């Protein structure tokens, strides 16, 4: 494979030569990185590892694997995956960058099927979704795998693993949906009528998400999806048929940020990964599915206020001023353990810029208490929903409108 496989050289951003792009000439950093990787290869002694039986193969037993919907068969059993913009070009026995889909004899199969590693009940606000059934809970599902390599991933243990290497539940779409329907409020417990795909990237296990989503839709259960929006258009439009709300991440502003921190391809390759995210956001808007945007503010990486201003201007112009925007606080995680938390001053400034850009509902998350946890009426300034983090303290919303001035607040309220 010339494409991303497991860890190592192939997983570096921009190494997707199989999809048409030749290997780019190595710069100084690239050369040193590869030299380091070469040293790693030697140091890690794969031969010893293999001798001891620890080497893992992507082509484990395909029993229970499912054929992927969005892919193209090429000659000689080669495959072009069309789920995400990486467009992985796979030879036989090779695995996509997401660590799930694998070319087995010219068929693209996925082991991410009926095997979530996380099933739990969460407040819907945790997605974050502040305008979607506030105060209710959801059954959250996650399966291992992800095509991105975010340096700050909080869920790296699942996202940076193949599903079959995790300890999973056996949960069919029917199990998941009927489980939600069994959630009956008792003793003041919260309503739960939503399934949420979160914690890992659902695009990596879209086949399972679709099966659950369609089944949920048929049983009148809502579906929320937290995603990086790293979708190909066709797959996204298909997802819009069963997703009720997107918590859509616009992780930063610009190709360079996406390349350095998120692990997309080098901007020099001109593959338009960042633009693909913007396009996906426009598609959701077009499809009329409820969407809230999240932006984790990572100090020194994407907290330049000129960039924030540009981003907010783009959102206001292309997605509208009514789409809620959440600025999240970074905490040291995964590979960025030595980067301090986002200063509160930065979050305040970003929020002010967004409000000045005309975005009506701007939130601050991952920090509580904070004024930005609450929902305010954009017309009269009334505090409509008071929150502490993702806990609702009071909800004054009346029929989806401000109790004071009657201004309609967009969202899914029932």
């Amino acid at each position: 494979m010339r494409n991303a496989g497991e860890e190592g050289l192939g997983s570096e951003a921009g190494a997707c030569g199989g999809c048409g792009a030749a290997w780019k000439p190595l710069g100084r950093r690239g050369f040193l990185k590869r030299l380091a990787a070469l040293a790693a290869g030697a140091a890690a002694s794969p031969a010893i590892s293999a001798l001891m039986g620890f080497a893992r193969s992507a082509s484990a037993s395909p029993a229970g694997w499912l054929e992927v919907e969005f892919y193209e068969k090429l000659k000689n059993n080669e495959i072009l995956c069309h789920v995400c913009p990486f467009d992985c070009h796979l030879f036989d026995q090779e695995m996509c960058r997401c660590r799930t889909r694998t070319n087995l004899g010219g068929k693209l199969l996925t082991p991410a099927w009926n095997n979530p590693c996380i099933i739990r009940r969460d407040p819907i606000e945790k997605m974050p979704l502040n305008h979607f059934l506030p105060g209710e809970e959801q059954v959250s599902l996650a399966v291992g795998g992800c095509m991105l390599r975010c340096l700050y991933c909080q869920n790296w243990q699942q996202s940076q693993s193949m599903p079959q290497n995790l300890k999973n539940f056996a949960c069919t779409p029917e199990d998941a949906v009927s489980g939600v329907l069994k959630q009956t409020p008792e003793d003041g417990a919260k309503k739960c009528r939503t399934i949420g795909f979160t914690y890992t990237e659902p695009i990596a296990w879209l086949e399972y998400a679709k099966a659950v989503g369609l089944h949920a839709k048929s049983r009148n259960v809502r579906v929320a999806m937290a995603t990086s929006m790293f979708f190909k258009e066709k797959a996204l439009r298909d997802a819009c048929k069963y997703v009720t709300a997107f918590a859509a991440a616009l992780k930063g502003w610009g190709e360079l940020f996406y390349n350095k921190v998120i692990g997309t391809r080098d901007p020099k390759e001109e593959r338009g990964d960042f633009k693909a995210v913007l396009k996906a956001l426009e598609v959701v808007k077009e499809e009329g599915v409820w969407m809230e945007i999240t932006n984790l503010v990572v100090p020194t990486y994407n907290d330049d206020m000129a960039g924030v201003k540009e981003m907010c201007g783009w959102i206001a112009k292309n997605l509208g001023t009514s789409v809620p925007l959440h600025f999240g606080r970074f905490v040291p995680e995964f590979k960025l353990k030595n980067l301090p938390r986002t200063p509160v001053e930065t979050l305040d400034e970003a929020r002010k810029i967004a409000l000045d850009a005309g975005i009506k509902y701007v939130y601050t998350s991952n920090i509580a208490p904070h004024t930005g946890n609450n929902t305010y009426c954009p017309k009269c300034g009334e505090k409509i929903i008071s929150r502490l983090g993702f806990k609702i303290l009071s909800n004054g919303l009346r029929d989806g409108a401000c109790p004071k001035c009657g201004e309609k607040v967009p969202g899914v309220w029932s």
Partner: protein
Amino acid sequence: MPEMRGKGAGRVVVSGEHGARPGPCGPAAGPVLALAAGAAGFEAQVLQLVLMRELLTFFSGLEIVIGATLSVWMAFTAAGAFAAGRIPARNPAARLVIALSAAGVWTAVALAAIRVSRGLLGIESGEEPSLPASVLLSMIAAGPSAAFLGAAFPAAAALLSGLGRFAPGRAFLYEAAGGAFAGAVFTFVMAHLLNPFQSAFLASGLALTAAAAAAGRSFRLGGAAAALFGFLLAVAGPLDRATEKARWRDWNEGYSMEETADSKYGRISVLRYRDQTSFFESGHLAFSIPDMESGAELAGMVMVQHRKPGCVLAIGGGISGLAREILRFPVESLDVVELDPKLVELAMRRLPAEERGIFYKPGVRMHYADGRLFVKRSDPESFDLVLICLPDPSTASLNRFYTREFFEEVGLALRPGGVCAFTLSSAENYLGSELLLRNGTEYHTFLSVFPHVRVVPGDPAIFLGSRDPSYLSLDPDVLADRLLERRPELAGEGGEGRHGWFSPHHYHMRLGSGDPAEVNRQLRTWPAPGSAGEPEGGGPRPLPSFLSGGRDGKDPWDEDVPEAERTLNSDQRPGASLATLLVWARKMGHPLLADALRGLSSLPVAFLALPGLLLLVPALALRAAGRPGGAAGWSAASAVFAVGLAEMVFELSVLYSFQGYYGYVYGEMGFLFAVFMAGLASGSWVSGRWFAERGRPAFVPALLLCCIAGSVCLPWALAAAGSAGSPAIVLSIFSLLTFLSGLPVGLLFPHASASGEGGLGRASSLYAADLAGGIAGALAAAPLLIPCAGLSATLRVFVPAILAAALIAHLASACRTPGREIQPPPPL
């Protein structure tokens, strides 16, 4: 693992039989030549310490990374000496001057290179470097310095060539003394007063001055080099400031560096970004201010787990907000223990006056001490609550705060009904196999001392332990009621943060969603089949009970702990540090390393001992081939290898135990290192005296058998030393054991280098063998064997290698050609 710093810093490879001619100053210049050899050892030691400290700020500080870096250092030193030993030295003094100058200059280049290397290696701002990047940088930056210093020693010893075959042993003695002196001077003086460039230039200048004095005809060259380093010393200040700024520009782009200071625990850097000030110690983020959340959440979760926490002890975290938040509760006294006074001083200067003032309130006491030592010295039943807020057990030093022995000491310091709490990095949703191994080990270690344990899930997870069965709780409503009872001002708090960041709602945020009971169950039943994180086997996990509309039955903490084979984390067997290493390897994208380490750790210890017997193969092959000369050479090399191995394992074992009993060892490192080098020097001196009387063919086998006896007896000696009541006695006994650890190589090297043919080449091979033994011992023992198998078993693992070497030595001595008399060396 700075405890290995002395290894390879100054070994001498030399022979006066060929290549080197008699010293230029003749026998009368003995003291000057000795001073030059000692100065070479002095410079080598200082440069090694400076570079190691600098590299520590670059990489993550894990045992395996430090071990790998030290191994790189030793390997390059060996290579430098080996290569230089094979080039005839027409003018050893000039060679010495050139080698020492090159080492000094390269070290300065390396210091600057390390500081700007993150950008060059493509490591992003705030990102932890990977193992390959760390090793690569060590090789590029520190390798040449080590090689130059390695090359300096044959030259230094060649100056003593008037001593003939005894020159290596004598030079060994002088450089060991120089190294011992350097260790003490650096730790107690240089690290406090000088920046790294100044230390490097001063040490190089002093060494070159001594070399110049010894150089005779090369005096001008040496004098010029010394003058150059004098000039460099003058510009070292601006150089340090400029490169330090460059480091942080690369590290956290956009942060401005406010201040840098050195303490005996590392280099502290203060960085500012917008309204936030962050403190880094040895390159690692220690804490930031203002930080309203971390301390508040920990205090809020823990202070309501005791009926009436009157006397509270906080180990770590006090200065960054934990003390402030504890004092929002009604407490009688608060003892805050911080290790590094310099870090506290720098933070205090930047805290708001109001927050600074809390440390001067009645009942609040700040202690600058090792937390473990503080607990050990506390009176029994002194505290109601002990809160440990320290980094993960990634090193042996940190692991001491997560062992059963430490929890037992805390248990003694707690009053009836007392609560102990500590934090550990974790995950909110899913514990992977490595994380479950580490946190499961810690859960059961804690449980072995405190029969009632609860874990607040999240990152970090908060572990709560008590001997009182009735009060610990994870029920958010119960905890909120307790909080309001103790802090009535929070009644009606609607999340405005009027009375601090924490409010009763936070219990619902942290404990109200997800399934805290399930996380506790996973840890309690670990490593039961089917528990999360086990990658294979055991079938799928059962669906959560809420999905079927049911409720859990008993709470997990009321269930019996299932029978299973579990290894607890202890001082003698610090398994949690290995598990933390596995978590790190997985996180940094080294799955093969994680799998290999895990595989090796699951092998029987006896299996790991077998490679030692391979030493026998070449010896037997050479004998069978009828090459007694080759067999004798192999005999000497394998003896030096085995003793180098034993010495390193002894030293590590002593230091591991010492820090468990005595406290944080970093501060005493210079002293202990000086004692170790004194052992080396004494051994060398005794060896010289011994030869002055007569040769002893059975010496080597006897010494190796003594090493085996040491391997068997050391665990008992360490345990006995730890049971001594007074810290002064503990220090004395451990100092003696450290001295004895250095003795074998000191005894053997002069003997081995003087008692065979082969000249400089032979001496070079012995030198390489010694370092190879050290490398093998350091890499195998520190990151793997001690955490997996414990100290006693680790010491036994190396016995077959030593036994094999003893057997080879015995066979070689049995067939020694008669007629070769060893002449006594000139007097010392």
